[in-house]
């Protein structure tokens, strides 16, 4: 039973990881908690589903959906994410944290309605990619290969890919440098504007990729973004904002915790992510002087 629950938690956790790691990355580099992140997830899902349905309408083969997911994600990241960063966020770096948060809150409100106008309110789904991959049997129970194998695999690739990118490439190292010490990085001549834009696009694309992957298993309805954002907040905060491996662990914790709850305490499954988040934040000693210590006196 526990194993079965774990298998479900894996897929769920992987999906949350994809969204949360983008959020975490953006926070680490830009210092902005992006409330509109859930909207990128939702738009990614809608765009991917529309693309898959359109491709199916043209009689194109189903496997094409997988590259389409990637294309949709990048498209959403560049077009929507890029626009938000270049047009709005860029103007408020260095201003109060509250204002940055509220700008993304405003973007969230606008994008939520934009989704409805563009994609309508009727549930939309494109499950062909999930069915195309078939099912696998574990202890007499059928799982879709899509959820059991593909989604965790993508999450793993993203995790390893990000690690490689941030550690081994010049651009990635520049991003890490900015995360660790913004002023020093600027002083070393790192082009912050480019880094910020690029990071935001990566983060938004990852959220959109999460959305694209979920579009094959989930019926898309207005409001899917606002549930996801709180969940990814929980993961990012649990992990410590800006931590990639941490986000993976936290997402898995939340995914498994929720699955376990469905078995053992179904009344509490929705509480699990928040309880984990509260518990971790409380135990982690982020008290007064650990945060102020960085201040030179």
């Amino acid at each position, binding site marked *: 039973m526990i194993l079965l629950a774990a298998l479900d938690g894996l897929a769920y956790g992987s999906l949350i990881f994809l969204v949360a790691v983008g959020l975490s990355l953006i926070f680490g580099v830009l210092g902005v908690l992006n409330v509109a992140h859930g909207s990128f997830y939702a738009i990614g899902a809608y765009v991917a589903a529309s693309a898959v349905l359109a491709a199916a309408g043209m009689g194109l083969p189903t496997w094409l959906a997988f590259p389409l997911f990637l294309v949709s994600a990048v498209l959403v990241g560049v077009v929507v994410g890029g626009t938000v960063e270049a047009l709005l966020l860029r103007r408020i770096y260095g201003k109060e944290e509250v204002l940055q948060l509220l700008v993304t809150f405003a973007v969230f409100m606008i994008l939520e309605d934009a989704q409805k106008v563009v994609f309508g309110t009727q549930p939309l789904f494109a499950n062909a990619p999930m069915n195309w991959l078939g099912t696998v049997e574990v202890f007499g129970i059928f799982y879709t290969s899509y959820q059991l194998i593909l989604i965790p695999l993508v999450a793993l690739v993203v995790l390893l890919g990000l690690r490689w990118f941030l550690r081994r490439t010049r651009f990635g190292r520049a991003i890490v440098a900015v995360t660790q010490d913004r002023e020093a990085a600027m002083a070393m001549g790192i082009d912050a504007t480019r880094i910020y834009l690029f990071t935001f696009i990566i983060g938004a694309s990852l959220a959109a990729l999460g959305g694209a992957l979920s579009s094959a298993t989930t019926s898309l309805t207005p409001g899917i973004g606002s549930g996801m954002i709180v969940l990814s907040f929980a993961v990012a*905060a649990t992990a410590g904002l800006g931590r990639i491996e941490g986000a993976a662990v936290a997402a898995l914790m939340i995914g498994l915790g929720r699955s376990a709850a469905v078995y053992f305490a179904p009344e509490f499954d929705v509480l699990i992510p928040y309880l984990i988040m509260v518990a971790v934040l409380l135990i982690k000693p982020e008290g007064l002087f650990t945060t102020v210590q960085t201040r030179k*006196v």
Partner: protein
Amino acid sequence: MSRQYLIGAGLLIALVAFPLLSPWSTVILTVALCEGLAALGILVLLRAGQVSFGHGLYFAFSAYVVAFMAAAHLGHEVLLLVPIATAASGLVAALVGLFIVRYRAIFFGMLNLAISMVFFSLLEKLFSITGGADGKRVPRPTLLGMTLERESFEFWMFYITLALAVVAALFVARYLASSGGKALEAIKSNETRLEYLGVSSRKVLYGAYLLSGLLAGLGGAIIALVSGHVTPELAYWVRSGEFVFIAILGGVGGVAGPFLGALMFQIIRGYAAVYAPETWHAVLGIMLLVIIFFAPSGLYGLIAGRRRASGEAAR
């Protein structure tokens, strides 16, 4: 300082007169005042540089206390329900505050969010107790022992709320100008120095947190009474975000700001509901962006002029 009073007085006169001109607006204005109270709580925290994305917790908690008490006929009286429910929220704030004042910035915001979401989930989940997502009805209580018809109840509730809001605003204004209020601002500008003055920034923030919880609780208690219904949505993070929205929209420069903001929020929402019923979120979002980029000191700042630039001496 006189400016603050001028704006407050102007707003007050407008509010006193308004329901007499347009009776249907009393409930909307009362709702605006309630949200203004919660946003006033946010303003207090913003002075310390802290933003809470979870004050829906206190708003909803007192609202549910009112709902449960009214349903159980425990003190079926406004003058009893409101103070008890507000105090209940204050009690929760006192408990949560014990550990939350150790956190700053994003962690402060996130922890507030997480706790309010726990409460929200519980309200939804404990169906048999809370009525789940559909919430609970709040039977209309008596006012000063009188059983009132809807219209007169709403009328009196509005003026009572207005009076409470004025008292709250004056108190907060006084508090912010007092040594405690300045110590609160000091948390934002230089917490290290505050500690080196021998002041416990946690204690200072604790007081402010308690106050903000009470203010949000007061707003929540009244909103439960005037709308006659409570739902978990009152504790949802988007609602908490709206309080921050209102505080920024109105401006954090003075205590009239949140009420100006709440009024404007209701006006925009009212217009949007009529002319763009399917996209009123977007209208609000655009409005928020306009304020942030073109009038960062909010409506209050627009009216009060460039207070900061001219310096505190000008007050």
